[in-house]
């Protein structure tokens, strides 16, 4: 952690933050010296970059040529630390992915923290370090931020809101309303890993699994995809609500129907088993490091090849095709069993069967 070891400004902050045993209190959000110290010694130190070094409430940068893309997302995940990730790296990956789903190259991020009074400084430091690590690994600096503290009981540990800005290469038109009948539907890897990894750690539901969240930044995979196949019609990351919700959303947005092939869906045995046990459908389980891609059928094999040659797309598959919508926009699944069923989006969380 490069910046963390810098000597403290003893004139400004005579007392060290007690990271090991200390907790966030109301003064850390009150705009005074305690807040300045928290920001300086934890956030600015970890995220260190030329924009933060300006020391302003905003970052100033020259706009790149081309169209700008902007996206924002709030992160409220529970638990904060989970197999394969944590809220900090998730807040970086998730927003980078939202920007990247336009085909854009993400450039900058902002981060807002809403922290509950009493939250351990040690946990906050871990989250910030994971976040800084993810930001550095993706080459997308966190250039501005904000910290607020709310009274105990008015939050749940920490909430993070990140906003990302990116720039779109010329010649791309990737959008949720751009899907055409005949398009192939591809997914960049196994479905449902994130949701099941989180469920396995939920209070009252702990079960043993070696599954990890698939949380990952997809911008580099996207860059390879659109460079090789600029005819990509649509990209979207199937997060909350899983593949089922995303496809239904897109079917309505583009006024088309979709047909999936169950045998083609990449689903890990551990996810399949957990879903069977809990009575939920893997298609409705969240992902954080996968994308769905739509492209003309004639370009699907090439796109698949490019995706599979990238580490984050090694298990990519063509899972179905787009049909005329006929005003109904149904997503259908040809089952392994030989039947045919509707893939519905869910109302609320997937609820367990009771008998």
């Amino acid at each position, binding site marked *: 952690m490069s910046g963390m070891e810098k000597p403290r400004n003893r004139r400004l902050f005579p007392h060290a933050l007690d990271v090991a045993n200390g907790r966030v209190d109301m003064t850390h959000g009150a705009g005074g010296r305690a807040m300045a110290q928290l920001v300086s010694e934890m956030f600015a130190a970890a995220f260190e970059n030329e924009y933060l070094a300006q020391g302003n409430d905003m970052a100033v940068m020259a706009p790149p040529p081309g169209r700008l893309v902007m996206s924002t997302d709030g992160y409220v995940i529970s638990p904060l630390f989970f197999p394969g990730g944590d809220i900090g790296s998730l807040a970086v990956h998730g927003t980078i992915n939202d920007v990247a789903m336009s085909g854009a190259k993400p450039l900058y991020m902002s981060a807002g923290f809403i922290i509950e009074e009493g939250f351990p400084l040690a946990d906050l430091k871990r989250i910030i370090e994971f976040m800084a690590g993810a930001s550095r690994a993706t080459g997308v600096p966190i250039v501005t931020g904000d910290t607020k503290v709310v009274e105990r009981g008015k939050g749940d540990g920490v909430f993070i809101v990140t906003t990302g800005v990116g720039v779109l290469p010329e010649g791309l038109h990737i959008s949720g309303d751009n899907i055409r009948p005949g398009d192939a539907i591809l997914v960049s890897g196994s479905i449902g890993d994130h949701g099941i990894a989180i469920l396995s750690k939920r209070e009252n539901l702990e079960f043993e699994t070696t599954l990890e969240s698939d949380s990952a930044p997809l911008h580099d995979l996207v860059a390879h995809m659109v460079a090789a196949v600029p005819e990509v019609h649509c990209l979207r990351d199937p997060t909350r609500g899983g593949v089922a919700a995303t496809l239904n959303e897109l079917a309505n947005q583009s006024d088309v129907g979709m047909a999936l092939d169950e045998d083609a869906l990449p689903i890990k045995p551990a996810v399949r088993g957990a879903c069977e046990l809990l009575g939920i459908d893997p298609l409705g389980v969240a992902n954080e490091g996968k994308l769905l891609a739509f492209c003309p059928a004639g370009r699907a094999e090439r796109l698949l090849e490019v995706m599979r040659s990238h580490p984050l797309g090694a298990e990519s598959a063509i899972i179905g095709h787009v049909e005329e919508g006929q005003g109904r926009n149904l997503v259908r699944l040809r*089952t392994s069993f030989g039947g045919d069923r509707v893939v519905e989006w869910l109302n609320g969380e997937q609820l367990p069967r009771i008998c």
Partner: protein
Amino acid sequence: MKYASEFRDGALARKVCAAIAAECQDGCAYTFMEFCGGHTHTIARYGLEQMLPEAIRLVHGPGCPVCVLPVGRIDSALELARDHGVILCTYGDMVRVPGSHRDSLLKAKAAGADVRMVWSTLDALKIARETPDRQVVFFGIGFETTTPPSAMALKMAKAENLNNFSVFCNHVMTPPAMRAVLDGEGLPLQGIIAPGHVSTVIGTGPYQEFADRGQAIVVSGFEPLDLLQSVHRLVRQVNEAAPRVENAYGRALPDDGNAKARAVIAETMTVREGFEWRGLGRLPDSALRIADAYADFDAERRFALPYRAVPDPKSCECADIVRGLKRPEECKLFGTACTPDAPIGSCMVSGEGACAAHWLYGRHRRTAAAE
């Protein structure tokens, strides 16, 4: 997946269907009721009705616990959560079931009531231990399958003197509901696909009375091949004119069920004089209440809950659907005013309800048929 994928083999399923078709005799009726909502779900999910020969008619029965619970009971749960300030612990399916005025536990929760979804009665006991200053009520619903966990919770609460815990008992029994269906004005049935999980508790013995009344009975598992095999056996019983009780779920079900589970139920619960079922009306000796020895843990007594019968919403055909008198799509509200997002009738709420299963899995089949 061991013990699951083998029972979902489509090619084998088509062979079984061909064998069934070959054995169906002209002029013979093969109308069978699958009692259990879990079976209804499998039938809809795998499209079994479309695979079976036309001679076979499957009627969806009342074995969906959420679907048969009357609105008045939901209102009581709402009253507990809202007016008595308890922590109401419930299985997930119940939270969206509409009570009077389209109210639900989910809406009550949003308005400040403390409603918690649990996966097990053990979770509810844990909450009671951890919050000794609050009353914790477990909303017990379901047939014989979910009754033993409620019964065990009562035993454990009593043993631990967990005096802030109680059970709102709505457990119902399968045989009285079957009796009511057969006594009612529904379609004449030739046989019943009996519920596998219920039978793991009660055994196969209680179905003999229905075989004695001329019904072919096969207790079935929940995978598509289980159900097709059960239909096959029912067809044979009809052809042989030899109705009897058969166990086609041998891998999970000993003929005598689970005596220990029955003993715990017998210790903690007792038969209610009468219980209102949605669709079937008030049935004598069809449900359980908490035994007097456990009265201290009975939420109905602790909170002096009155029961007020509430008529079903107008135009809602759930009552006829759970008796097999109507198919879901014959209800005017189906898919228009009543969908899983905004359910009016209980059959649309639970994934095991006939309406939800048809909506979820069957819609495009009707579109395809219309084309």
